[in-house]
């Protein structure tokens, strides 16, 4: 100890660095473990209750003669050693409660006992049943089947044999209360209500009316006397999240798998096992594998930095002890004695670093856990932690011994020289050469794809080691040349400071370490932000918008009107209709309002190209709207005739197709034509009080009959308003031209009338679509077009679920919140002449996760009788991505980057501290000769700064290249998202921040160090004895 009181600063630096090495080693398993626990917790919490439970159910439905075991016996099937991982099992019986005599109005259904059931339903009337034959029925049943409290009913009970026939006993049940069910994990996903009054899906015959589950005490099932029919005996184990850690979950995974495949003993009722724990365990296990990549990736690099720094400090420290080592030789102690002298001094100090290192790691893990990890995860000092500590001890021991041996084995005559011979050339030292070659080889192997796994993970650090060392060795001779040249030219400050840097052993160290540290900082920051960005992108892609509300039902008109009311501009909320894919090969159709959608939806990786989206617009034709219940028109110059196959004429019916606001098509007849006539008055009726849009003009006859001729229709007028409705001109219509059925050609130049020339080949109905109706829906697509499509024309599924012609006008990389393939079309266009099918999903997308807006929309929808089924926010989706080992691991990067810079600062300080006397004395010597104070200060600062700047530049490049090499192997997601938004390009913001941080910390640090040196360069230094 006296030894270290003599040089406390060095001891402190060594302990700090050793502690850092140990902390890096220990932190990795500690944090990894905490992360796994958090992961387990999150996974269990996030999983539906059915996934984290084991449900065992013995049933004799196959063979009613087999006796059913008790729930206790069923519960015992779960191996006793894992029962501690679960809450005490919930026991239960299940049976049938088919009301007799079994008439159509007598409902059938289940009778259920769950231990503690009354605590988990809301009893709306009466009390909890506690005696055999008492039941609690659902509030709906009480109403539907007149089962108020006090009512009794009879159901079939246990079967018994009389003679050759099997009969059921009659069980009398008394309603003692009514209940409603609220969501509760106790029920493990079992729905008790919702069946009341519905028909069962009977196999074959018509279904039977059902009642909800009736709850009854255990006694109803197994008291003596008339007991209910037991069909199943049940035990439900819910996982005890407070007891279960990652190990237990992984164990349970295999236990669950075994349990599922456990054979049924002959003659016993088969026990079915329902559990999602196996999948849960697989999920956890996958994520653990991921964390095994990132955590070592970051910690190993930091550890490497710490080891390199410790090594350099040890070199300096042992170098400084050369005279003492020489003394050991001189006193006859030999090499071994010399080594022992050094080790006796250094080893206790470096090994002492293990203790603060362990503490530091625990504190850091605690902080990291508190900041980054959800929940209150325990920190566990387990075997891997101990092993890591032992590893750290081994490394510390190793480098201390090597550093000591290196000096101790030098001949005493060399040791006695006051100054070790300088390496003035740029020849690499043997150790450095080996390091450079080794690291370089690894980097090359990795870059060429020959290496994977954990070693590859430290590629950025190794690259930086190579570059840093080479640069360090190149720097000093280059700087020497440069300095001499400057001095020859009379540039005093520059020349002296460069020479000072060139000849100071600290310069190489500074360049090498600052390179390594900056590389780490840049890489870490880059990795962190790349991860962040990718999770953000993936979340945006998956969510689609900051808030998405799924609307119940298919009343699109109501939804649109509600949204118009809330947001007339359509830039805050926008409707989206999702038409499910008809089969695996075709894509989903997404109906959007292009302006609203591009404003509201999130497009990670780049704003939508408005030119592409503009092409979605449907035909630019105003709809022709009829508002009223009856309408009239007149036809002039009609030559319409229809000729049947046998040559006889037949009247031709003419009419309009009218689309109601909901898209329903009204096929409305206007009148009949029978040969040539000058003028025919036409009239029709349709429920179009809210306005119908004309979608087509049709003529019909009998199947097989031809239709031909011309007719001019005009003076279309709606009653009772008397409003005239324009039918022309011809541009408002799309000519029908179908070789197989016939043609209808419009001609007209005025709004008032329309002339149609019809030539039918035998189709009973010819419809000339209004130009407002799209012939082909323009779509933007992602993914492949349906199979069999050639070119850009294909079929999508229209809103009504029917095929609709579409044309691909452009492609998208991704469609927000949609997989592939997806076909995006303009909702207005899709809506023209089509109803919204009940299978379509209407969604409301919000530009902001804004409760006020949501409330406004909810209430506007409510006014129209529409409700929101559920909402998904971007934040929820993002949280899902963030709560993963992949994300938590990368968060370490921030810590690593910051620490790397601080370590570099420590190196600067230690270097300065170990050589300040010499350097201050040099500066004092210059001061003595009259070099002005300002120059002295400038020289002192300038001697530090270039090496730091050079290191930062080199480190930045190494970090960027390293990130480029390594990022593709770093897991960013627990499970890769369905639609990849992967973007591993450099996060320049992160790089700028990291470089700025390095510049500020190290730059300011070296300026301060330089100034401190200058301040200590008083000429009195020259009177101090010796160097």
């Amino acid at each position, binding site marked *: 100890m*006296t030894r270290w009181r003599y040089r406390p600063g060095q001891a402190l630096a060594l302990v700090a660095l050793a502690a850092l090495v140990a902390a890096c080693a220990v932190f990795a398993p500690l944090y990894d473990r905490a992360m796994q626990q958090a992961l387990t917790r999150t996974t269990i919490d996030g999983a539906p209750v059915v996934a984290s439970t084991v449900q065992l159910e013995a049933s004799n439905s196959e063979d009613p003669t087999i006796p059913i075991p008790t729930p206790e016996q069923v519960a015992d099937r779960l191996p006793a050693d894992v029962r501690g991982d679960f809450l005490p099992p919930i026991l239960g019986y299940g049976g049938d409660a088919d009301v007799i005599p079994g008439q159509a109005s007598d409902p059938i259904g289940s009778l259920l006992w769950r231990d503690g059931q009354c605590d988990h339903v809301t009893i709306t009337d009466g009390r909890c049943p506690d005696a055999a034959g008492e039941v609690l029925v659902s509030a709906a049943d009480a109403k539907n089947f007149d089962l108020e409290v006090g009512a009794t009913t009879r159901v079939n009970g246990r079967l018994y044999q009389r003679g050759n026939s099997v009969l059921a006993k009659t069980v009398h049940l008394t309603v003692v209360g009514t209940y409603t069910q609220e969501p509760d994990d106790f029920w493990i996903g079992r729905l008790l209500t919702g069946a009341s009054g519905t028909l069962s899906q009977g196999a074959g015959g018509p279904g039977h009316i059902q009642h909800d589950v009736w709850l009854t005490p255990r006694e109803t099932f197994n008291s003596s006397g008339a007991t209910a029919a037991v069909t199943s005996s049940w035990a439900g184990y819910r996982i005890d999240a407070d007891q279960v850690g990652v190990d237990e979950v992984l164990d349970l995974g295999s236990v669950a798998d075994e349990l599922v495949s456990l054979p049924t003993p002959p003659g016993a009722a088969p026990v079915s096992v329902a559990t999602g724990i196996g999948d849960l365990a697989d999920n956890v296990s996958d994520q653990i594998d991921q964390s095994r990549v990132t955590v070592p990736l970051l910690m190993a690099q930091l550890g490497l930095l710490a080891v390199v720094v410790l090594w350099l400090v040890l070199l300096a420290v042992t170098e400084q002890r050369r*005279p*003492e080592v020489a*003394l050991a*030789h*001189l*006193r*006859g*102690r*030999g090499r071994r004695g010399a080594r022992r002298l050094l080790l006796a001094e250094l080893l206790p100090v470096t090994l002492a670093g293990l203790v603060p290192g362990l503490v530091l790691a625990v504190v850091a893990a605690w902080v990291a856990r508190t900041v980054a990890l959800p929940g209150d995860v325990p920190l566990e000092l387990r075997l891997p932690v101990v092993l890591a500590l032992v590893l750290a001890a081994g490394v510390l021991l190793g480098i201390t011994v090597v550093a000591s041996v290196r000096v101790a084995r030098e001949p005493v005559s060399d040791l006695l020289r006051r100054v070790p011979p300088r390496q003035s050339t740029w020849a690499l030292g043997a150790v450095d050469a080996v390091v450079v070659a080794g690291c370089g080889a690894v980097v090359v192997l990795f870059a060429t794809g020959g290496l994977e796994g954990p070693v590859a993970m430290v590629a950025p650090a190794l690259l930086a080691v190579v570059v840093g060392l080479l640069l360090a060795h190149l720097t000093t001779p280059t700087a020497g040349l440069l300095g001499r040249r400057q001095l020859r030219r009379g540039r005093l400050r520059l020349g002296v400071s460069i020479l000072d840097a060139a000849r100071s052993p600290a310069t190489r160290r500074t360049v090498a370490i600052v390179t390594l540290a900056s590389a780490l900082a840049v890489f870490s920051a880059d990795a962190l932000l790349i991860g962040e960005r990718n999770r953000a992108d993936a979340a945006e892609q998956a969510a689609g918008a900051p808030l998405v509300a799924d609307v119940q039902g298919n009343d699109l008109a109501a939804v649109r009107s509600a949204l118009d009311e809330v947001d007339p501009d359509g830039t805050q909320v926008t409707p989206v209709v999702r038409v499910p894919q008809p089969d695996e090969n075709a894509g989903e159709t997404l109906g959007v309002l292009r302006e609203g959608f591009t404003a509201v939806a999130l497009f990670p990786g780049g704003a939508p190209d408005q030119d592409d989206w503009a092409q979605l617009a449907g035909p630019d034709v105003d709809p022709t709207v009829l508002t009223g219940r009856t309408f009239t028109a007149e036809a002039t110059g009609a030559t319409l005739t229809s000729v049947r196959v046998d040559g006889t004429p037949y009247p031709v019916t003419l009419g309009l197709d009218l689309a109601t606001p909901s898209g329903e098509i009204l096929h409305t007849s206007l009148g009949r034509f029978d040969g040539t006539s000058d003028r025919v008055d036409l009239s029709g009726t349709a429920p179009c009080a809210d306005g119908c849009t004309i979608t087509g003009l049709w003529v019909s006859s009998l199947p097989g009959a031809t239709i031909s001729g011309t007719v001019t229709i005009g003076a279309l007028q709606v009653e009772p308003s008397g409003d005239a409705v324009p039918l022309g001109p011809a541009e408002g219509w799309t000519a029908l031209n179908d070789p197989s059925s016939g043609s209808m050609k419009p001609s007209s130049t005025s709004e008032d009338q329309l002339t149609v020339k019809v030539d039918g080949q035998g189709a009973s109905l010819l419809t000339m679509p209004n130009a407002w109706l799209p012939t082909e829906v323009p779509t933007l697509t992602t993914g492949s077009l349906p199979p069999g499509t050639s070119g850009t024309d294909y079929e999508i599924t229209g809103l009504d679920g029917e095929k609709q012609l579409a044309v691909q006008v452009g492609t998208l990389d991704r469609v927000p919140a949609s997989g592939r393939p997806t076909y995006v079309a303009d909702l207005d266009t899709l809506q023209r002449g089509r109803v919204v099918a009940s299978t379509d999903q209407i969604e409301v997308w919000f530009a902001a996760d804004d409760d006020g807006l949501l409330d406004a929309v909810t209430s506007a929808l409510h006014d129209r009788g529409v409700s929101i089924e559920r909402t998904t926010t971007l934040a929820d989706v993002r949280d899902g991505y963030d709560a993963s080992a992949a994300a938590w691991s990368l968060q370490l990067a921030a810590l690593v980057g910051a620490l790397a810079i601080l370590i570099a600062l420590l190196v600067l300080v230690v270097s300065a501290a170990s050589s300040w006397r010499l350097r201050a004395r040099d500066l004092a010597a210059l001061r003595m000769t009259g070099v002005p104070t300002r120059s002295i200060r400038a020289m002192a600062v300038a001697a530090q700064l270039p090496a730091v700047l050079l290191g930062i530049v080199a480190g930045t490049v190494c970090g960027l290249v390293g990130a480029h090499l390594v990022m593709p192997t770093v897991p960013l997601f627990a499970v890769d998202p369905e639609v990849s938004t992967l973007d591993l390009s450099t996060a320049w913001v992160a790089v700028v921040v990291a470089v700025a941080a390095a510049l500020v910390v190290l730059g300011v640090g070296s300026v301060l160090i330089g100034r401190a040196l200058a301040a200590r360069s008083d000429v009195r230094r020259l009177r101090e004895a010796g160097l």
Partner: protein
Amino acid sequence: MTGMRVSTRGLVLIYRSEGHEVAALSGVDLDIEAGEMVGLLGPSGSGKSTLLSLLAGLFRPSAGKVFVGPHELSSATPRELDALRAREVSLMLQGAVRNLLPYFTPIENVRFAQGAARVVRGDVPSPEEVVAGVGLGDDAHRPLAELSPGHLQLAALAVSMATTPGLLLADEPTSQLDHEARDLVLERMALVNREFGTTIVLVTHDPDVAATLPRTITIRDGRVGGEGRSGEEYAVVTPDGFLPLPGHVRENLLPGTLVRFHLEDGNYLLLPESSEQPSEGRHRA
């Protein structure tokens, strides 16, 4: 342990410097009897420190032999040299602090110096005794930083004498001391020399120090250039019959000068060829 005899024969040491081979010592023959206290003098760079290092076995001569007591150092193994340094040969480096572990007190330093010897043979004197022996008893347990330069040098002497070695080699033991401290250190060295019979070879450039020594050897240009006995300067005839001229004589007898030795009344007169007057060759030192 009593003093050890030291002698060298034809000692040559060549080292490389900036691509040149430089002879630091070019044939030194030296005989120092056991128990003698001898000063090595000479200008800087003359090779006196190198000679001291060779006597300590720090490195091997390029040629020649070094005898210390019964040992011949030029062929000794590192282990033998370690054993020798452990108890019999002690080198005191120039600058007192270089002989001391900075974090130890004088007594701890002495104990450290005895470490190797204590393993080999048990009869090392107690550290207290050693420290008291050089007159440093009061400062034995004080940190080095509190010691005056003179006392630091005494501590270095104590460390060097820790195992009562047979040979003490001291490089400029008084160079950075004021006169009082210098005299104190010399006095204590003389005391050690008398009391233990330790042979002492010390390098100095201080004429005052040289004047106090019974015998001095001047090294010049890697050779024995002369000897002084109680202040009187002598030239020494080498075993192969050469006679180096003292420095001041060389200024008069330039290289190439022919001289004659003339025996007159049992004394040799040195007569340069051009001169008829033998007295011109005499010069005051």
